[in-house]
């Protein structure tokens, strides 16, 4: 094992011991403020076995995951092509860019009240908000990806008379893909943040709903369980996307080396 991993594990162990000591042994932190390890465990068992806030942990987590994936897919299915198109077509860029300049400064979370007004507290509003938040990074990075393609490569493919479809498939997409993936990673992060916020504002299921109910019930153990669940799912989906990126870009040694 490397020194880095060893020290990391040791740190985590020390933090756990400190947590245990401060909450359980010395009682430095009041139970109403931060849960002890035992309380957290019992909250986990509670939501796992009997359910909390309208469902068990798996139901809530899958509900959130489904919304994030749906919103994210809708956003990239619309954002990436639009970004590529704007990168390619200067006129389209000139037309669309000012609209972007107006909409972009509005933070994604500020769309939540509007989405609730339009679609209520159900799934539709969540997907709409995630779409707004994940759309912008997808567009901007795909756009930048096209603009970073080197001139000689374009000229070579034109000179060889590459048909349009093949050009898109074999030159445009591969060359823009490192930037596209950067955009996707940002979009995914934005999706999770937005979903959690939207669920905290109002929802019937989901991890944000667990946090919301736990906050009202003053149930610190459950709050911690909810937060850890959010972190695990955020980490897991980011990891999956990273694996997809490595697989897709396996031909591109320079991009992979730059990522470390």
């Amino acid at each position, binding site marked *: 094992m490397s*020194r*880095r991993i060893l*020290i*990391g*594990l040791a*740190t*985590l162990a020390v*933090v756990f011991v400190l947590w245990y000591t401060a909450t359980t042994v010395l009682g430095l932190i009041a139970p*109403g*403020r*931060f849960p002890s390890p035992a309380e957290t465990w019992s909250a986990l068992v509670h939501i796992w076995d009997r359910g909390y806030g309208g469902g068990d942990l798996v139901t809530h987590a899958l509900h959130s995951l489904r919304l994030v994936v749906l919103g994210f897919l809708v956003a990239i299915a619309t954002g990436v092509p639009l970004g590529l198109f704007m*990168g*390619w*077509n*200067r*006129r389209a860029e*000139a*037309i*669309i*860019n*000012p*609209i972007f300049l*107006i909409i972009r*400064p*509005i*933070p*994604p*979370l*500020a*769309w*939540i*009240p*509007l989405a609730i*007004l*339009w679609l209520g507290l159900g799934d539709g509003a969540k997907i709409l908000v995630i779409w707004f938040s994940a759309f912008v990074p997808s567009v901007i990075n795909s756009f930048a990806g*096209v*603009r970073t*393609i080197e001139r000689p490569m*374009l000229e070579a493919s034109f000179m060889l008379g590459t048909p349009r479809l093949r050009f898109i498939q074999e030159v445009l997409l591969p060359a823009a893909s490192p930037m596209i993936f950067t955009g996707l990673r940002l979009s995914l992060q934005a999706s*999770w*943040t937005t979903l*959690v*916020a939207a669920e*905290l*504002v109002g929802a019937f299921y989901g991890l*944000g709903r667990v*946090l919301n109910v*736990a*906050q009202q019930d*003053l149930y*610190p153990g459950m*709050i911690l369980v*909810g*937060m850890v669940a*959010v*972190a*695990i799912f*955020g*980490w897991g989906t*980011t990891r999956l996307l990273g694996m997809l990126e490595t697989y897709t870009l396996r031909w591109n040694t320079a991009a992979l080396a730059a990522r470390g």
Partner: protein
Amino acid sequence: MQPPVTFLQSVALGFLGLGLFIGLWYVLSVSGFVPRVFLPSPGEVVDRFAVLMERRFAGATLLGHLAASFERFAYGFLLAAVVGIPLGLLMGWYRLLDEIVSPLFDGLRFVAPIAWVPFAALWFGTGIGGPIMIIFAGAFPPCVINAYRGAKFVDPRLIEAANMLGTPSLRVIREVLLPSSVPSIIAGLRVSAGLGWQSLVGAELIVASAGVGYMMVQGQANVSTATVMSGMVAIGLVGLALDTILRLIERVILRRRGLEH
């Protein structure tokens, strides 16, 4: 790529785009295709914005709400900078600290800032403390990460030169490491201001009892779409102003060091 369009063309096309956008919005709203309650026309939003500037809604005028929001933002953002930048720099210089803090930091980073809302409300209440903590949670990571990168990726030749000349280590930090990490720190501050401002909006939507986000929630509860949209415009304008100011500062600093590209 197509050849670039001329400046005049791009301006004309830009206005065309904006015209199409606002025109479509206007037509959808005025024609009644989308109920007026849910999509007020652009003019109505402007009117509402003007009214909110003068009359109180949800306890204060729009400017009053903005002032409340901005105060929280300023505290949270400054706190994040004051704690985050030194931590990042130290992590960049001292390997052991990096190895100790990194695993904790990486774990916490995956908790969306907004997920801190319940604990923030529990620990610091919903007045000013809770929202400040959430802004801090949003603005802190970019401060740390960029200060860390700035300190870690200092040109080794500079450090070697300083060491060779026998510079004492405190002076190396003050005169070599710190100045060469400034551009990265400033870039981090810009990202962190953006995330902090966004987190503030989220926090106010959920817990606060004043501020622009609160005003929007009240607008939503009263089915006053124009109020919600006015809030969005105000938030966007302040966010834009913040980014512009930090961009200017960044340019000035980079220019003074001859780093501007």
